[in-house]
């Protein structure tokens, strides 16, 4: 498996608040906005000038997904 080094997306997610919504930049290298809800992160990403972010919902804890 490749190392996690130099993976800005992974590092961004590691620093993202848990149980929240985050907006990643189009190139997925950085978080441009966060919010407690989908509506809040959309509003915050628009205020940040992000035209086409990718939204991700973070879980309460990062762990293996078995949904």
């Amino acid at each position, binding site marked *: 498996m490749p190392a996690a080094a130099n993976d800005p997306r992974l590092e961004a997610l590691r620093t993202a608040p848990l149980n929240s919504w985050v907006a990643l930049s189009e190139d997925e290298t950085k978080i441009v906005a966060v919010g407690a809800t989908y509506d809040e992160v959309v509003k915050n990403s628009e205020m940040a000038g992000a035209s086409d972010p990718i939204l991700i919902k973070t879980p309460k804890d990062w*762990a*293996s997904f078995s949904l």
Partner: protein
Amino acid sequence: MSLTVPYKKFPDPSGAGGFAYYAAIPVNIALPASNSPRSKRFEAIIDSGASNCIFHADIGRAIGLDIAKGAPLRTLGVAGPTSVYAHDISLHAPGGIIAVRAGFSADLPIAGLLGMKGFFDHFKISFDATALACTLERIYRT
């Protein structure tokens, strides 16, 4: 049309290197009526273990759904049974729009799951653990 998507890394303290790979793609959803405004792009995990497509209730509300007015649907996960509400939506996925009856839940820990009904039945999907990528080939039925 086929699309190869690299696996995405997500934090996972129990995984080697502190992360795990998942096949995930950005999608939008909208109400079924043509020209309905789409949600923002959000990342959904391609999950062959999910019977249905399930999305977080926040996204459903944002596109105009009254979540609790959907048809109750019982689902069974590792954590046990849970209830979601089913609604007809349009899924904007690679290759175009798919009409999907999807579940919505406020308890979903992530934004969305792309499951067997509504997603896998519209694609040939291969997972390549050596290339760390997933290839989607859209199936168009006449």
